[in-house]
């Protein structure tokens, strides 16, 4: 009963908004604003035909590969730069500069230079996402307790083991925070790169629909991307809670 009341409190507004949209758009005469029922209808049609599923698979693969590259490069470089004070001081302004480049501006350059396939999209995502991960990892490494550091040194822990078992876990909360920042950037860059030029993926579905004046499909594709993005972000925060449970429980927050 109590959970029901709570669910009611949290869900009434979204339900109301969707209902309003449903009925307000039901008799829409504006060709650019199709009825919600029509949008749902075409969405369902293209999902069950597998068209949208394939498109989503392409987009999400690009996103995942790009993010993985960014994470690998960002974390490795971050550990290295974070541990070496001099290197950190020298490179600091350049990292901040690259971090500040509006990631969407990279899209025409990379796609223009490398063509329309999957690789340039993956690179764009990777390039855009690497900077927040790198910066956060550096911060995380710097934040590792000096006592823990000196203890490791006193016991002569080998360098590799030291990185793997001391520095990396210590920096983990910051690394994950970097991934959290990078994730939405990656999604945006993925969408922009596909909207810019593509022949497959969710962005292509939207682009193609709008170019051929299939308005309900355009809306449907946009909603689909939005919902997928939302689900990814929510899943990530669940993952974060699991991976960092020691951190949350230790009350370090």
């Amino acid at each position, binding site marked *: 009963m109590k959970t029901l009341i*709570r669910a009611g*409190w*949290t*869900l*009434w*507004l*979204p339900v109301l*908004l969707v209902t309003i949209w449903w009925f307000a758009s039901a008799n829409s005469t504006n060709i*650019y*604003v199709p009825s919600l029922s029509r949008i749902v209808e075409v969405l369902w049609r293209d999902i069950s035909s597998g068209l949208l599923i394939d498109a989503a698979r392409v987009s999400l693969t690009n996103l995942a590969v790009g993010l993985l590259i960014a994470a690998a490069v960002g974390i490795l470089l971050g550990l290295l730069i974070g541990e070496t004070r*001099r290197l950190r*001081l*020298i*490179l600091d*302004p*350049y990292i*901040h*500069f*690259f971090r*500040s*480049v*509006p*990631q*969407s*501006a*990279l*899209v*025409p*350059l990379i796609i*223009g*230079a*490398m063509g329309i396939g999957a690789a340039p999209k993956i690179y764009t995502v990777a390039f855009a996402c690497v900077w927040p991960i790198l910066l956060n990892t550096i911060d995380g490494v710097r934040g590792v307790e000096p006592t823990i550091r000196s203890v490791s040194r006193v016991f002569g822990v080998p360098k590799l083991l030291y990185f793997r078992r001391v520095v990396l876990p210590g920096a983990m909360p910051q690394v994950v925070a970097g991934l959290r920042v990078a994730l*939405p*950037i990656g*999604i*945006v860059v993925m*969408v*922009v790169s596909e*909207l*810019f030029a593509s022949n497959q993926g969710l962005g292509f579905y*939207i*682009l193609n*629909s*709008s170019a051929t004046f299939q*308005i309900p499909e*355009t*809306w449907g*594709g*946009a909603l689909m*991307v*939005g919902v997928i*993005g*939302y689900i*990814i*972000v*929510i899943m990530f925060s669940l993952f974060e809670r699991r991976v960092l449970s020691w951190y949350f429980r230790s009350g370090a927050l």
Partner: protein
Amino acid sequence: MTTTHTRAPSAETKAPRRSALLQRDWSLLAQRLGALGIILALWQAAVLTGLLPSITPTVPEVTLGLWTAVTSTSFWTALGQTLSAATAGWIISCVLGVFLGLLIGPLRWLDRSTSVTVEFGRAFPTIALMPVILLLLGATTSMQITMVVLSALWPVLVQSILGARRLDPGIADTVRIYRIPRLLWFRRVLLPSALPFVTTGVRIAASISILAAVGIEVLTQVPGIGRMITLAQEAQRWDLAFAYLFFAGLFGWTVTALLARAESSLLAWNRQASG
């Protein structure tokens, strides 16, 4: 303001340290320049050896491109267009987000009612709506500003709600005991109390505003620096495209640095009180 012993490291104690660093560390500057040289040399080598795609401009070409860009009026016009669209959207987002956030945050029923909607809005990649908004509003500046607001509103809103939620119960009681009127409470209590959180949202919103404004220009016919990059790329003027990209980065960097500085001076009390 003579007591310094209770203070955490602050802007005041940092300033002399920084100048000392500069005096002592000419070598750091030299090393930074050296690092820049190495980066540029690597780039040049990568282009010449064919590691980067052959159309990538060489370092001298980009340097020339930078000069061409700075001396052309169209570049400055484009930069101005991007700047004004991003700024307009950013300001609207900030005003709207702070107002709504400070309204929602202190009211528990409203907070609970809106939480799912706000979460969804924040996680929703707004750029996906671009084709739809483009259909509705056309490739206009108002479309661009709308998109910027739809993207940048959320961090401000979420941070403002968080900030308003954490109003100290002791202060809340005090405000009630002394029957502080609603408007004064909003201005002198809730707003300053939420400010440390709000400024974070405002700072994130600024980066997102630039990202969205440039993204819209890249994807549509809306004029601005993003459009210039696309046009340069289409015209195979890679030197110019890289130069514009460089300036876009410089622009973003300047904005971030300015906001960080404004924030630390605005929130001097917060650092002291909690540090």
